[in-house]
């Protein structure tokens, strides 16, 4: 089937404005008759719940954390892009649009990206009005820094805690609506199923993580803002609770999963220290503004103290290979370059899995105080984890899974192929193509939540009668029974291996065979090993306790079971895409280390349909058209 993204046509500059006018409206007096469910309270979900509540809809918001303020958007460090052109350095909405399309390696929809660039400026205004304390210059105006993949300074920031401050802004707007009674907040609830009645999304089944009770909630529309899935690699920069579960359950109820193979490996993370490790910690890309990346030229120098390696014996490989972007090359390119150096035997630190990020030159030029003011909290964090002082010796960095560009398929209105199911933020696939540029995730989350869904959901709700299905409908009971049966199964197996062991194993397979570089062979290996591991899981997992209590092992068992299914789809998608683009690098398709796209055969969105347990999923294609930014080899040289 050929999918239709329902993008507006005509001059790109007018698409969103025209579409907004064309969308149907819900009368203010009628809005309160509609119930809307929002799952997830990060930037996308929090902003959506707050904005929809403000408009007068009845919103029910859900998060698995103990408070909506803790969603993992909070961990974004570096900043948020906007096309304000405050520095007068040549930025424009068109340039942000252009950079994002190119940065995504020509695998995103033009109309969606245009809209994102257009509303980026409103986001900054909104956040300032909320009291987000963005960095300012000495005249009192908003300050900007540079990020990868752009030659203008368009990134707004709040020290190294931009995600935290933006999330607290959205959380404060959400709190205001909770107080006003337009949003009912359900925390410590994990969505475990999507309820679909006669082909339309009508609600969700959640587990109350404190009591263990399975609860049903019905609504006229369901918005998933449930984040990304890179915990499929086990070790990633995501929070421990991040999972594919909500998206996977929706997928099993019919929602198409688009481009799952587009995963972002962030170039600057603290290298792994041991097998017991539970997560990896990212160091903001903004560090590459002032840090220089290098490895020793000679293999025999790798064991030396970095400060004893002479300048001439260092290979500043990013500056050498990509002179115009240098250390600010985009993430996919910087990560692959790091892997290349390490594979070549010139990596540093334990296992040779590391490259240096060196601030010595910047400290000499600007002084340690300036560097401390810009990145002090990051240096502190680095020292806490590694016991090394980044001011005195170069930091060690290695790429780590960080973000998923793929996600549930949505049309221009952010609605999936299931009517009534909307998908926002990292959970959808829409704007980043095959690679996301730095400081664009925060932009997308807030764009979807504040400035897209409030319009597009109205266009849908105006066509449906409110309250058609209640939570006592048979489909809700069936959903609860199915979830209960699955949980009883986990608890009854009483095998020999813990949930963590299985997660570590599947994550290891994914990182090894489907990580920064993939081949036909490695992917086929995974397509054999993952089903075997899944089978073992269902025979040999050990989960203690009961379902009727707070049970973290049971929570993790469910998430792991879903990763064990999803990982296979990810590999299948990577195997079918016989090209390299952005974060998807197939070693067979390269030109001296650079990704080799195949626009003749793969210039489409690949959206997978679930066909039932043990059955091959079906691929649907949405062709991509580039009328404004012409398909070209993506060069940062």
């Amino acid at each position, binding site marked *: 089937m050929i999918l239709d993204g329902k993008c507006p046509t005509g001059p790109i500059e007018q698409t969103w404005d025209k579409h907004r006018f064309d969308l149907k409206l819900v009368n203010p007096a009628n809005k309160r008759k509609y119930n809307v469910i929002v799952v997830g309270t990060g930037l996308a979900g929090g902003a959506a719940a*707050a*904005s929809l509540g*403000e408009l007068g809809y009845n919103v029910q918001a859900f998060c698995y*954390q*103990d*408070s909506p*303020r*803790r969603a993992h958007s*909070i*961990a974004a460090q570096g900043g948020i892009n906007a096309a*304000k052109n*405050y520095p007068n350095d040549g930025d424009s909405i068109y340039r942000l649009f252009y950079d994002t399309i190119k940065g995504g390696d020509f695998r995103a929809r033009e109309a969606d990206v245009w809209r994102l660039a257009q509303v980026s400026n*409103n986001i*900054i*205004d*909104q956040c*300032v*009005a*909320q*009291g987000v*304390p963005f960095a*300012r210059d000495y*005249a*009192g105006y908003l300050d900007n820094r540079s990020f990868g993949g752009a030659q203008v300074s368009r990134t707004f920031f*709040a*020290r190294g*805690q931009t995600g*935290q*401050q933006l999330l*607290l802004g959205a959380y*404060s*707007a959400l*709190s*205001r609506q*909770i107080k006003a009674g337009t949003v009912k907040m359900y*925390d410590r609830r994990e969505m475990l199923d999507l309820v679909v009645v006669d082909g339309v999304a009508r609600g969700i089944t959640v587990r109350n993580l*404190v009591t263990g009770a399975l609860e049903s909630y019905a609504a006229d529309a369901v918005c998933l803002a449930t984040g990304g899935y890179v915990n499929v690699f086990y070790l990633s920069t995501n*929070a*421990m609770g991040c999972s594919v579960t909500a998206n996977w359950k929706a997928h099993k109820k019919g929602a198409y999963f688009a481009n799952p193979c587009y995963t972002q490996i962030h170039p600057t993370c603290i290298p792994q*220290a*041991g097998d*017991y*490790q*539970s*997560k990896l*910690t990212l160091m903001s890309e903004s560090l590459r503004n002032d840090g220089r990346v290098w490895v020793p030229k000679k293999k025999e120098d790798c064991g030396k103290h970095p400060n004893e390696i002479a300048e001439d014996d260092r290979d500043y490989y990013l500056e050498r290979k990509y002179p115009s972007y240098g250390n600010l090359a985009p993430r996919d390119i910087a990560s692959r370059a790091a892997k290349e150096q390490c594979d070549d035997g010139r990596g540093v630190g*334990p296992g040779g899995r590391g490259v240096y990020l060196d601030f010595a030159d910047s400290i000499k030029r600007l002084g340690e105080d300036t560097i401390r003011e810009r990145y002090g909290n990051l240096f502190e*964090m680095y020292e*806490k*984890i*590694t*016991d090394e002082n980044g001011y005195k010796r170069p930091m060690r960095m290695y790429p780590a899974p960080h973000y998923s560009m793929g996600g549930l398929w949505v049309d221009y209105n952010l609605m999936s192929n299931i009517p009534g199911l909307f998908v926002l933020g990292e959970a959808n696939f829409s704007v980043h193509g095959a690679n996301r540029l730095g400081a664009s995730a925060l932009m997308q989350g807030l764009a979807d939540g504040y*400035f897209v869904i*409030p319009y597009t959901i109205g266009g849908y709700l105006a066509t449906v009668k409110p309250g058609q299905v209640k939570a006592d409908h048979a489909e809700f009971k069936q959903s609860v029974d199915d979830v209960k049966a699955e949980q009883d199964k986990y608890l009854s197996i009483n095998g020999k291996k*813990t949930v963590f062991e299985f997660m570590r194993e599947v994550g290891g397979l994914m990182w090894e065979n489907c990580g920064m570089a993939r081949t036909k062979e490695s992917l086929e290996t995974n397509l054999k090993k993952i089903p075997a591991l899944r089978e073992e899981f269902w025979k040999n997992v050990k989960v*203690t*306790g009961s379902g009727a209590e*707070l049970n*973290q*092992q049971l929570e993790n068992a469910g998430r792991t079971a879903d990763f064990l299914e999803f990982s296979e789809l990810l590999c299948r998608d990577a195997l079918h895409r016989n090209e390299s683009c952005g974060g998807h690098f197939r070693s067979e398709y390269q030109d001296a280390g650079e990704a080799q796209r195949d626009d003749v055969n793969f210039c489409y969105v690949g959206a997978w349909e679930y066909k039932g347990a043990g059955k091959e999923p079906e691929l649907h294609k949405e062709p991509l058209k580039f009328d404004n930014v012409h398909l070209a080899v993506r060069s940062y040289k």
Partner: protein
Amino acid sequence: MSDHKTMTLTLIVWRQKNANDPGKFETYTAKNITEHHSFLEMLDCVNEDLIYAGKDPIVFDHDCREGICGTCSQVINGAPHGGQDRTTVCQLHMRKFKDGDTIYIEPWRARAFPIIRDLIVDRSALDKIIQAGGYTSCHTGGVADGNAIIIPKPVADEAMDAAECVGCGACVAGCPNGAAMLFTGAKVSQLALLPQGKAEAAERVKNMTNTMIECGFGNCTNHYECMAACPKGINVKFIARMNREFLKAQFA
């Protein structure tokens, strides 16, 4: 990095099945712990052993494990977050401990934070304080350009100092009175400092203070334990600012 020495530690951990259970300390041994383990990874290892033995693992709140989400919450040897300067439990590493150490692990203890299970407490009272006024009442859209109002850098920086709060509740756990003055003072100050927050400053401080009292938090008697416990180094001067704002609001 290449240090392969391992530690064995004795853990004395608060176990409590649910809110109605009286709870008690249980003793466990943590083995094969290296200096690079984070504190929570050490607990992960202990939990794996408990699961193999068919026992209920210790439950504790945690999520980002990089010191920013504010979820983790344990009192370690009497100090919230373990007493290392500006560090959450998840960022505390085992190199701060010695082989053979005995470590006491407890939940946040405060009247306003009922225990849910083991080391997990209910901190929804902090959300209620924010809901009482921790925002500017701006609507989505229809706001001025971000540069329409300039804010002197020192003011913006001080607002950011206050805004760093992660809402973990260590200040409450550290306070002998179980007060949430540092938490509330930080939000009141952030918004009172910025021009965008001034319009509602008087109403805000009154509503947030009243809610704080209704939720069962205590009063401030200047012990400064909150500041010592705060993983983000929030300064007690923000409590003073809140008191000033509160006084001002009485005449507003």
